[in-house]
Structure formats: C-alpha cells, structure tokens
C-alpha cells in the first residue's frame, strides 16, 4: 500500500507524542521494504497514538494524523474515519482546555446548562455527583479532572462493595490485608475445570446488560481449539445512569484484577484487555496501577493492557469494542460468529463486565450470594450505588437511597437506562429480578435506576433519550441510522404541537420502532425505541 500524504509536516510536538508511544523511527534504509504484515500488525495502536497526539496538542491535525499513518502504515482516509467516529477526538484546532458538561438526564434534572465554549456530553457516569463535568488540560502534563464526590464513598451493601471506602485502592498490601488474592490462590489449586463448574453452578448472569449465563460463556472459550484466547473486560460503562463499574474500579481495583486473573486462568486466555471509557481517568489509572503491582508480586502472569475509549457509547457493545481495540471504527459486527468463537483479532474471546468479574471472587471463595449493584440517581435524597438481593422490590431500593426529596411525589422510574423503559408509580412493588421485571415488560439492563418526581419535565427527558440514540448510533445500518434521526424529529414535533395530528405520528413511531427492533444489527438499534414507547404509552407524557 502506497501511503500518500499531502497535508504538510507534523509539528515537533506532535511527532514527539507519536514517537513517545511507538519509539523513535528507524533511520531509513532503502534496501529493505517497509510495510507489509509486521507493520499492519500495529494497526491496533491507532487509538493509543491518537490519544497521545491529542493529549499533547489538544486536537488531531492533518499533519499529525498523516505522520501517525506513515508510522503505523494505515491509509489516512481510514484513520480519518476513526478520528471522526469518536466524539472525544477533535479534527479541528481548539484551545488548551476542553470542558465537557454532562447534559444527560440526571444532570438535566440537577439543572445542568452547557455554558458557552463548553462541549455538551452524554452521561459521564457521575450521576451521583450531578451536575457533572470533565475537564481536560492538554499539554505535556495532560490531565483530566472529574467532578469530585460530595460525600465519602458509602458502603450500602455487604458483599460486592465490602472493601469500598475500606481498602486503600493504591496499595496491594492493603488489599492483601482484606483477604485479597485468596480466591485466585484457591482457584489455582482447584484447576480450570473446577472453577468453571463453580461459576456455572452459581448461575451467575452477566452484569453488562444482556444477562448471559457466565459459566456457559467461560466453558465455550475454554473449549475453543483456536489460539490464542483473549479476555476482554468491558469497562466502557456508558449507559446513561450507570456508574457501578466506576465505583468498583476507583475503590477496589485489585478485585477486578483478581477476577480477571481467575477468568484468564480458567479459560486459558493468553492476553487480556480492560477497555475503560475515556471519561473515567481515575478508574483507568487505578486499574493500571493495580495491574502493575499485582504483576510485580506474581499474581498476574498473563499479559494485560488497559485500553482507553474515546467517547462512544456503542463501544460498550462487545463486538464494537473489539473493533475499537483493533484500531477501527466502533462498528458492531453481525453475529454469528459469536465472540467465543471469533472475537478480538478473530480469536476466541471472553468479554465480561466489571461487576461480573468481581463476582467471581466470591463464587470461588464460596461466599457468593445473588445480589447485584444498582445505580440510583435522579430525584432521590442519596444518589449512589446500592447492593441488594435479587428480587428486592424497587420501592425498597428507592427507600435505601433516602426516598424522594421532601414534599415531592413520584412521577416515574427509568429502569435500565436509555435502553430500558419507564415504570409508573403503581408498579413500584416490582421485584428487581430478571423474571420480575420481564413480567411488566421492563428489564434490569445495566442496573440503572433513575427516579423522577412531579417536578420533572418528562417531555424533555424523552427528547433527551431520543437525541442520545441519534448521537450514539454508529451509523452503519439503515434502520438505526435513519430510524433514530426520524424518531427524534417526530417526537420533537409531537411534543411541540400536542394538538397536531398526534395519532398518525404515534403510528409512524411504532412503525419505525418495529423495524429498528427487527432489522438493526445490534442492541443499540434494537432497543432505541423502548424508553420512548414506554414513555408515551405508560406515562402518557403527551397527555399530561
């Protein structure tokens, strides 16, 4: 492949950023041919290189992109497609600071306004701190700062959160003092097959949203004949209203590392990745340091790399995540083939959510109980992560979070985030279990529980959800790419003129919804109409 670059040279600063990551370029030796397989195998470094450029310069210029392309042997048109796919990368020049203001649901309810010069952002995973921001300062000493917590980490749970606020997340010794790595030791004594048996027997269901039986997934990867096997921890956590994985990674990062070590041991993974969303700089740093400390002490004996997202909800979808790690646009793949046969780099892959992997410790230790983390946010007294037993009534969970603000009455609960659906005040006794929620046509999804009282403007909430899907669709398939745009337009005009021809528009929305559900490639398009449909039918937002 002939890489043609006509954009002029990169600045010294940009070249230093790229070379800092890839090493100094070798002096040109025209007797040997560069490119080919060895170079193409570096394609997966594209996102890290783009981050290095932008962290230093604040944006990705044409000169910088073309320099990176020459070094990685990637066609510039393809690399440009990657830059423009991710919301965080800026292909236009801008100042040395970027302020991202969350204007998603929980922050909207908390009065967030995107000030001039700031970038509006979808949920930053800090809903318990709403209104939330993320500030990036570019330069040699890049830093990203999140809205700080107002209250100390609470531990309203007994099992998964027991070390939160108790251990020192920066110290492996502190973790060891609290029973750390006992499960890994036990697992190594039991052997891979026995560990998988225990996971299967626990009936653990994946906590990333799809609720797939974890044991079955582990067995498939362990049985896959093709090598190598990859472990991918999904820490992209971008479902609006979800922040449990952040709380785990920030406060108990060694537990995730231990869970990954057990998973890799049981399923024979040679290499692991943790894909952390870009908006979680603290979690990313803590997990990275935990991996380094655990490796130094011999607890991690396989390769693990922390990868940084770049602002794309869709990269939480496992196959989009694989493409992102491979240095491509985060477009989901058609299934089959499933990840356990052909996932990351086309090899058998075990994708698991952070909370799923942390649960494995207790399964091996014999301390597992069917509890799960819920992220309660919105108009409640104490937003936060709460651990309750499966089957607990929704009402009890909301009470745990201190209930409504004084003097307010309940309007609705959004269960499962933007991909979930609305629950009405008379459904608050629904048990928080997969079957319980299914019985009323809802889902637990990622464990997001957003509470709305009588002061909430539900029309604006529905519109925000519609905009979320339009912004976050990868754009690959027609039902979702055009469907989410039409859905937002139609909803907007319905809400603007409630006396217009509402019935025809309701029909249109439901026609679009059915095609998105039936014909979209991935779960984003398949669920993009759920919350809006339930808002219109259950909550009767239009009539109120």
């Amino acid at each position, binding site marked *: *492949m*002939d*890489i*043609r670059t*006509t*954009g002029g040279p990169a600045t010294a600063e940009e070249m230093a950023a790229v070379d800092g990551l890839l090493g100094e370029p070798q002096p040109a030796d025209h007797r040997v041919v560069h490119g080919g397989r060895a170079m193409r195998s570096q394609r997966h470094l594209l996102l890290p290189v783009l981050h290095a450029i932008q962290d230093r310069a604040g944006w990705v210029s*044409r000169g910088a*992109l*073309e320099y990176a392309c020459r070094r990685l042997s990637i*066609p*510039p*048109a*393809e*690399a*440009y*497609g990657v830059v*423009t*796919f991710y*919301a965080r990368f800026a*292909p236009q020049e801008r100042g040395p600071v970027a302020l991202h203001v969350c204007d998603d649901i929980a922050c909207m309810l908390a009065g967030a306004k995107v000030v001039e010069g700031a970038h509006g952002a979808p949920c930053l995973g800090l809903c318990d701190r709403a209104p939330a921001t993320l500030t990036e300062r570019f330069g040699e000493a890049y830093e990203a700062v999140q809205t700080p917590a107002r209250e100390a980490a609470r531990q309203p749970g007994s099992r998964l959160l027991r070390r939160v606020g108790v251990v020192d997340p920066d110290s492996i010794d502190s973790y060891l003092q609290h029973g750390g790595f006992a499960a890994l030791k036990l697992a190594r004594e039991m052997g891979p097959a026995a560990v998988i048996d225990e996971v299967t027997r626990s009936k653990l269901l994946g906590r990333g949203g799809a609720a797939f039986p974890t044991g079955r997934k582990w067995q498939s990867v362990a049985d896959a004949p093709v090598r190598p096997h990859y472990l991918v921890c999904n820490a992209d956590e971008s479902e609006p209203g979800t922040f449990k994985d952040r709380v785990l990674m920030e406060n108990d990062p060694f537990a995730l590392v231990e869970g990954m070590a057990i998973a890799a041991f049981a399923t024979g993974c040679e290499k692991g990745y943790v894909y952390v969303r870009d908006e979680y700089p603290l979690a990313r740093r803590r997990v990275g340091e935990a991996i380094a400390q655990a490796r130094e002490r011999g607890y991690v004996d396989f390769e693990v790399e922390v990868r940084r997202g770049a602002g*794309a909800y869709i990269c939480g979808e496992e196959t989009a995540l694989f493409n992102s790690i491979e240095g491509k*646009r985060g477009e989901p793949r*058609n299934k089959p083939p499933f990840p356990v046969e052909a996932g990351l780099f086309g090899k058998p892959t075990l994708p698991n959510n952070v909370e799923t992997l942390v649960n494995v410790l207790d399964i091996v230790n014999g301390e597992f109980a069917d509890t799960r983390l819920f992220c309660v946010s919105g108009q409640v007294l104490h937003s936060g992560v709460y651990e309750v037993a499966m089957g607990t009534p929704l009402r009890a969970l909301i009470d745990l979070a201190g209930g409504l603000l004084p003097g307010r009455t309940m309007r609705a609960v959004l269960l499962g985030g933007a991909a979930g659906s609305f629950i009405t005040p008379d459904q608050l006794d629904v048990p928080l279990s997969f079957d319980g929620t299914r019985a009323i046509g809802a889902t637990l999804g990622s464990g997001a529980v957003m509470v709305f009282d009588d002061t909430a403007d539900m029309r604006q909430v529905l519109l925000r959800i519609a905009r979320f899907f*339009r*912004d*976050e*669709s*990868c*754009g*690959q*398939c*027609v*039902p979702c*790419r*055009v*469907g*989410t*745009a*039409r859905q937002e*337009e*139609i909803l907007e*005009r319905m809400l603007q003129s409630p006396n217009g021809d509402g019935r025809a528009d309701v029909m*249109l929305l439901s*026609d*679009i919804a*059915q*095609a998105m*559900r*039936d*014909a*979209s*490639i991935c779960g984003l398009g*398949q669920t993009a109409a759920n919350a809006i449909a339930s808002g219109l039918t259950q909550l009767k937002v239009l009539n109120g």
Partner: protein
Amino acid sequence: MADVTLTIDGREVQAREGSTILDACRRMRIDTPTLCQLDTLTPVNVCRVCVVELEGARVLVPACSRKVEAGMKIRTDSERVRHSRRLVLELLASSVDMSLCSPQVRGWMDRYGAAPGRFGKQVATVAQPVKVDNDLYVRDYSRCILCYKCVEACGVDAQNTFAIGVAGRGFDAHISTEFDVGLPDSACVYCGNCIGVCPTGALMFKSEHDMRAAGTWDESKQTVTETVCPYCGVGCMLELHVQENSIVKVTSPLDHSVTSGHLCVKGRFGFEFVQRRGAKG
C-alpha cells in the same frame, strides 16, 4: 463441500454448505431486494433490506451474509419481513435522492408500498452540493445510501488504494477522503472501480454528469460496444457506452473472468484520443 437441507417459504431446498441464504433464495427464484450486496465484494450487511425471518431467532437475519445451516426454517415474505423491508426503503428514500437507482429498486419500492413522504417534510436529509474536483468523475453524496461498496472496491476487495473511507458517526456518517481533501490531493488513482459498484449514481463519470446537467444524456440513444482494452496485455473487457458517436462512459461486466468489473485508469478513462481524432479528423 457438503450440501445442507433447509426450508424456505415452506419448500425444502438443498444448498451448498458455506453459501448464504440469499444464494439459496436466488436458486429458488425468490426475488430478494439487496442494496449493499454485490457478488464481487465481501458482505457488509448494513442496508438490511434483504432481511428474512428465521424460525427461532429473536430478530430478522440478513439473507446476504447469513450462511445456510441444516434445518433452518426461513420465511421471506412474512408480515415482519415485509414491514422491515418497507421501512428500510422508506427511511433511505426519505433521506437520500434515490432517483437514479435502477428500475429494480423502484420495483421493490412498489412491491413493499414504500411511501417515503410520510415522515413529513422537515426531515434531515443528506442533501449537499456535488463534489466536482477533477475532470474524470464527480461525487454527488446527496445520492449516497452509505452502502460501503465504493470503500470496499477502493480497498481490499479490488483496488487496494484506500483513498476513501467512512467518516463521521450516526446520521452524519459519510464517505470521505482524509480531512475531506479533494481527490487530486488524496491517494485516488482514478481507476473508477468505485463508480463501477455504486448503485445510486452518487459516483458518476464527469461526461455523464455534464450531459445530464445540459439535458443531453439520453440512454435510449446509446449503444454498448464490447471490446478489449488496447493498453496492456491483461485483456480487460470493456463496454463502451456510445451516444451520438461519442464514448460517454466505460464499464466492464461484473461477471467477466478477468476484470470482475474492475479496470484501471487507462481502460476506464483513457478514451479521449478516440473522440479527439474523430473531432479533428
């Protein structure tokens, strides 16, 4: 490879293992709409107009890429299938100028009762000015349905030049060179293979574009002459589209064993000398 037996629309059919549902449908002469599929390109399964109902599956599956499996029970004309096909065509036509698509596409629109106007007038479209930045071909992305075919043809499926890619996300996704530079500044070598696979007229010979603008393009006055490219020894088959004794565009048949429809800049665009000699006599 072995054969598998599956059922399509109640009829049993044998299909080669590794072939697609679409292949099986074609053998049964079930007309299946496709927009992003081409026999010479790797399936991207993005347009979703070919979806069929597979018993036991939660969602519809794309016929163009889903491989046949023994015992599959498939319906190609159920209510759900008709609904999704209709919506895909409607959604596309409500956002893209599809007026230069083949009559076949219009036939599918009629068959599924697509009424793109029903979403209203004030809806987002991809309308934009035509990109004219060289003398050989133009890019009118207000006609682009984002089928990815040009990107595949420019990439590993044929040309290996990688001058264009998909940029942006969601409704803003579009075909672009790096930083949207004009073709002369890009890696493009003007092979025209992207034009050859484009199903919508978004990519068009400049000669055709100019004649359409002048109102002189008239396919009823055109003849097609088959010949072999005179430039090198590969032996690419050319189809010269001639109107009023002038070559107005050059194609090559998709099923030709040498070209698979692909040419290089010489065969595709190197015909000027023919007319010049004619003109100057």
